């Protein structure tokens, strides 16, 4: 199963890199987000605030990439007739869909580098990482957790043919309830427990604490705990939904 996962991540990233539309979005979005954050937050005088907003923008993009990769890839697999073939293979569907989601999250990690570089080159925002080791671990931990959250969502896409639209619709709600778009303190108190269950909350905190000084390890730990939980839930859902799709006959887009 491990070779299938590794090859899956590599080939889905390779495939995404060959779509000019996806590629241009990945390159342009983080730069756009960083530029907006710079002007909104008056970064010249508050460089730390910009850095913090940059990490928020990076995790937002990471989530977007996971949503687009998982929902878009499943819809594409239906259209090109490969969904039935991967289901017909003896490897569990989790090892097929998981790499698509993690591949999307890994593409999203590029946003972190792009945003930091853009801020440093154009806006003279100093890039100073307080805990380099923790920061280096916070990136893959965030990618893994956000990617595996996508796995839960992707499992429903096996059932529904309108997967792409359904997936895109989840972008903003997750951005909002995880505090990436507006601070959680501005939202009703019932949102906070929801945010604790969602990986982008902890992924962002891990990056933030590691870069700006704080205690990143609990946040990185939460990313890993949530990853294990998402994997278990997503795997169970996929087995159940695959069975339902076989009963309904909804794997093919015809």
């Amino acid at each position, binding site marked *: 199963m491990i070779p*299938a996962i590794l090859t*899956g991540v590599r080939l889905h990233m390779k*495939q995404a890199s060959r779509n000019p539309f996806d590629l241009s979005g990945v390159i342009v979005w983080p730069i756009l987000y960083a530029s907006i954050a710079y002007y909104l937050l008056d970064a010249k005088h508050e460089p730390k605030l910009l850095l913090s907003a940059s990490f928020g923008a990076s995790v937002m993009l990471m989530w977007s990439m996971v949503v687009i990769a998982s929902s878009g890839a499943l819809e594409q697999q239906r259209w090109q007739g*490969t969904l039935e*073939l991967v289901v*017909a293979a003896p490897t569990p569907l989790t090892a*097929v869909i998981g790499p698509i989601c993690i591949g999307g999250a890994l593409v999203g990690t590029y946003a972190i580098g792009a945003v930091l570089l853009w801020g440093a080159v154009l806006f003279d925002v100093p890039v100073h990482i307080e805990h380099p080791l923790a920061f280096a671990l916070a990136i893959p931990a965030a990618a893994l957790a956000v990617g595996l959250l996508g796995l839960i969502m992707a499992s429903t896409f096996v059932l529904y043919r309108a997967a792409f639209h359904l997936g895109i619709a989840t972008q903003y709600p997750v951005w909002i309830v995880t505090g990436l778009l507006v601070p959680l303190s501005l939202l009703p108190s019932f949102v906070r427990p929801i945010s604790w269950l969602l990986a982008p909350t902890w992924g962002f905190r891990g990056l933030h604490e590691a870069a700006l000084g704080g205690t990143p390890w609990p946040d990185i730990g939460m990313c890993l705990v949530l990853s294990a939980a998402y994997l278990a839930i997503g795997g169970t859902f996929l087995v159940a939904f695959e069975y339902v799709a*076989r009963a309904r*006959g909804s794997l093919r887009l015809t």
Partner: protein
Amino acid sequence: MAVIEVENLTRRYRSRTGTFRRRTAVVEALRGVSFAVEQGELFGLLGPNGAGKTTMIKVLTTLLLPTSGSARVLGFDARREARQIRGRVGYVFGGDRGLYDRLSAYDNLRYFADLYRVPPRTRRTRIDSLLEMVELKGRERERVETYSRGMRQRLHIARGLLHDPELLFLDEPTIGLDPVGARELRDTIGTLHQAGKTILLTTHYMYEADALCQRIAVIANGSFVATGTPSDLKKVVGDNTIVEIETFGVEDEVVDRLRRIPGVRAVGVETRDQAQVLLVQSAVGADVVRALLNELSGAVTGKVITREPTLEDAYVELVRSA
């Protein structure tokens, strides 16, 4: 030993229409089908579009659950033991779909080799030998989106054979191929069969089924209407003579009059390009040509051929009477 055992298999689909007033319709794609395929056999499944051929293959490859009845593949239950079946069978379908277009042929095969758990130490040699077999060696690093239909179909065959399956399902593999490509693919299927593979083949092409299959089942409206060797099936119309008459613009009532001519057993109409071809079955020795041409005197007629029945005639007769 039977590698496929199907008992009273039924598969129904539910389809919904309407946005506000939802209506549910139930379509019965397979109706109580029973059959068996022996080890090493090349078994053909013939039937018109929508007859249930692909549904049958999807149940046997575990992509669909049977609604009722049972299907056992290589001794495993298709409903409950899907994982065991999936590693032992290969599934290839015809047409443009089923490949990652933006990846190379090699990347496609590499990915499916991992999904089918081909050991890493044999993966490379296995992929190379299959590329050699389907004559794609040297083109394997090119993106699949640049491939012709024939090349894609050959790549499909290579993909289906990566894990050296005991049983191969080929769902209309030559559809859309040019005559040369189709012949090459038929040769490949024949070679695989000679190598000992059990193959279940669905096709629309009678000569393909006649040339390749040891036994054939004709399926229409979800039920098997006949099973046997190609020569068994030809006997369905064996005591008939076929008269083919090329015509243009013949009305239905004229065709009905032809059916009433003494000695005529059945009349079918096929459209070929601009022409209608009347396929008239009559008893051997009955001279019906003159009477047929008299009835068609008001219509434009072309070639008239009298010949022995073929598998296609048997198929048409079986499907029509189903």
